[in-house]
């Protein structure tokens, strides 16, 4: 029982912690710099790593049916040409699955900011969000 005590206390402490309010961010600002792989990211972007955030975005039109993971962009029309790495956020839903939905959607969750690369060294994602939409 004594060995379980720290776990019980930790669980109680977590339960008692206040729910972290998400910070409202804009994808326009995440995209508002010239990204190059390996660069030092602007502090305003890097500081969001691990932070709970909420933002409006549009599902990328290549979103699969019945998926947990998909890409979103801040600009529905992608009017500025081909979207670049820092124009995308990769969403992984905490629960449930979805297909493509048109129109602006609000997402909330914890943001990760770091390069995730494939075996060719190509950046698969820079921003990732574990969360949900409503």
């Amino acid at each position, binding site marked *: 029982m004594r060995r379980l005590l720290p776990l019980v206390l930790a669980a109680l402490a977590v339960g008692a912690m206040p729910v972290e309010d998400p910070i409202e961010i804009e994808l326009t600002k995440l995209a508002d710099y010239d990204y190059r792989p390996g660069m030092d990211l602007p502090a305003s972007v890097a500081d969001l790593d691990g932070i709970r955030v909420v933002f409006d975005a549009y599902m990328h039109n290549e979103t699969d049916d019945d998926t947990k993971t998909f890409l979103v962009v801040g600009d529905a029309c992608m009017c500025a040409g081909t979207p670049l790495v820092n124009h995308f956020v990769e969403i992984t839903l905490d629960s449930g699955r979805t297909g493509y939905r048109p129109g602006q959607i609000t997402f909330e969750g914890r943001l990760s900011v770091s390069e995730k690369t494939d075996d060719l060294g*190509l950046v698969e994602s820079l921003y990732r969000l574990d969360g949900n939409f409503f």
Partner: protein
Amino acid sequence: MATSSKPPLRWLAALVLAGVASAQAAPQVDRLLEAAQNGSPVVRPQAAERLIALADEAAPRMLTLLETESLADLGQELVEVAGKLGSAELRERLWRALDDRDFPWRPAAARGLAASIQAFERERALAWLDDPLASVRSAGVTALGALDARADEPVLHALLKSDSSDRVRRDAAELVDAWGTRWALAWIVEELDRTDVFFDQDTGRAARFAATRALEQRLGHALAVRPEEPASAPANAAAFQALRDEVKALAGGRWPKLPAVAKVGAAVPPALLGLEIRSCRAGEHFLRFSADDRLWLGVGANPTSVALEPGTVERLVATIGAALEPLEVDTWGEPGCDAEQLYLRTDPAAAPRIWRVSKGAEAVADLRPEALAAALRALVAAVPEAIDGAPARRTLDAALSAVGGPLE
């Protein structure tokens, strides 16, 4: 003689080394081609750009691919990079594709060609400036910049005066400014005051951010005007005036009179009904109907407006709402370069409902459900035959046909 035997040995060594390098590059090129064609939207442009450094291997591999696949099948990222690999044969294929109005990746082909345009291709690039697709016109501006074709500056002035695309006008203004005609920056400064929206898309805000980046690049310093708010907002007013003074001074005290298409106009009332078409073949078309019985064409600082018969919009909203009521889903087709979105908002304060049809490069039969076709027929019938002397209803009908097939 030792001296005479050295060069052949050196050449042989160089050939062997080149062969080894080529053999090492080949698998990587194939993997990059695969990633550029079938990877995620994040990866595809990077993989394509990586091929430029491996052009000696990539160009013949791409030509081999084209023996079994069409240029369209390669996808837009490879189409674009095909123009940057230094292969005359690939470039000629892109030129032919551009001449085909049914080729789905014409903007990508134009961008690829523009990046390394040759002097003898100038006339063909100039023709892009009259293209119905804004992205192709934009590539035309890039091409003139790459050619440093300063004698063609008057055609850029014509774009500033009347091009319907804010992006084309911004590109033209940046190039004209780079060539020393600094009053062209006034076009971009004006964009800082945009507040326009198209349903849930904050087009004015996106334009302010794009204008800020363009001006910072042209002026060589950060702007004090913050794009989060329009330039005329109290927080920005002083900085905006200082910016105008700076640009005016650079232009020798001249501030041009902006044409209506570029000048920020009165706010558009909230729209109840609208249509957005983005077609890689038929171009971009935006229209919306506001409660005050006006039809608004286009997006941007100052869309064209047409007065309709009183009661038109109320009737349309009722007709279209009833037509769409039985539909249980709101999206049809596959992701691709052709899309149409119908917007309907019965409560001006609420988010619009959206019905979307999209498809890839190939035509798809029976893509649009009859209920949506009926709604679109009602909408198209409410558009005047011609607006400002240009065919409106027929153009809209053709654009819808290019995406979801004929309405009838």
